[in-house]
Structure formats: C-alpha cells, structure tokens
C-alpha cells in the first residue's frame, strides 16, 4: 500500500507503472487492475475555470487516506493499492488524484477502487478553491455523490 500527497504535477500512469514494477510479490498474482484518475476540468457549474488551489490538512489527510484504504482492504481481497493526490496550485487538464487497486479478480478491483474514491471525496480533508476566468475565487462547497 502506498499513499502519497504530491505538491508537484504528477503523471498518474507513470506512478502506477513504477509502483507496479516495484512490487515483486504482485507479479503473476494480479488479474485485475482498476485505476481511477481525477483530472481538473476547465469548466464547473457553468463557469470557465482557469486554475485551482487544493488545500489539505497535513497529517490528517494521510491518516484518513490510510484508514479508507484499510477499510477497503478489509472488505475486499486486495493485493495492493496506490493513492496519489495533488495539493497546491493546479491548472486545467492536470491530474488531481489517482487510485489504483490490484486484485486477483475484477469485481473486487472495481468495488474497492470505487469505494476508495467515494470515501476520499467525503472524508479526506482536501478543499478546492477555483479561480474563475472572471477573476473571481470560489471555494467548492460540496462534492457530488459518485454513486448517483
């Protein structure tokens, strides 16, 4: 399991690949990998967005992410998990988060990765402030429910 908070732009596929290669025990054992990537869009709620600042609570964020991953691995037979989440100033089209889950069978990979994403969205202390094209800054108020 690996959980990373990244102050810099990162390449989600590269992170997943490097992590997968580094895990010798997984080789030959995983049949399924489910990867979710959240990327910054250039629009939201009808407005053009030109930038975003992601604030977090150092320490608590990692702790909550570890708890979420532990909940997932206790619910589903999971071989490994990688979570990388960006913080700081972000531009449209840059990745915000990647969650990768390796399992033997596909159902568990889908279930666990979705669980981790939903829990991250509702419990991990991150806050987004958007900078609109109109030069207005606005804090996001609430995440939408991803199961609906």
């Amino acid at each position: 399991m690996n959980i990373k908070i990244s102050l810099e732009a990162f390449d989600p596929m590269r992170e997943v690949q490097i992590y997968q290669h580094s895990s010798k025990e997984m080789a030959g054992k995983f049949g399924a990998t489910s990867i979710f990537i959240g990327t910054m869009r250039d629009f939201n709620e009808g407005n053009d967005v030109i930038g975003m600042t992601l604030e977090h609570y150092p320490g608590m964020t990692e702790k909550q992410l570890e708890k979420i991953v532990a909940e997932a691995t206790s619910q589903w037979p999971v071989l490994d998990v990688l979570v990388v989440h960006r913080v700081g100033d972000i531009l449209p089209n840059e990745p915000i988060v990647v969650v990768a889950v390796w399992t033997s069978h596909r159902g568990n990979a889908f279930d666990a990765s979705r669980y981790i994403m939903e829990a991250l969205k509702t419990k991990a202390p991150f806050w987004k402030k958007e900078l609109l094209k109109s030069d207005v800054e606005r804090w996001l108020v609430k995440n939408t429910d991803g199961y609906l």
Partner: protein
Amino acid sequence: MSIRVRYFASLKESLGRSEDNLEIDGLATVNEIWRYANPDKALPDNCLAAVNMAYVNLIDTVKDGDEVAFFPPVTGG
C-alpha cells in the same frame, strides 16, 4: 489545559486566522472549544470537527494537549 485549534479552507479565510492556542480550565467539549476561541461567531452548520486528526462529534470532550480542527465539508478527489 492547552488546546491548539486549527482552521482550514473557507473557514480559515472567513476567520482571518489559521489557528488559536488556548489555555482553559477544566473539561471542555469540542463545541465549547469553538465558543472559547470564537465567542462572537457561531460554528457554521455544515462544518466538521476533528481531534488529533480523527473526526469527532461536537459533544465529544477534549483533553490537555489535543489538537482540535474545524473545517468546511471536504472537496478533494
């Protein structure tokens, strides 16, 4: 007891500060910690609270050395 109080995101901006260091006597709930630190301002309805980086209810009690945090609903991912 000594309590460090931290604020994040829009709550931090609206209060104009990111933390308080309180010295108070006796027991206190999370709710009371807010009132000590912000006597003139009600805690916004939807705000969340954590003690030592774990989510808590506002009626939970805090102890000497605890770090209490208040913040708006999270919007990561």
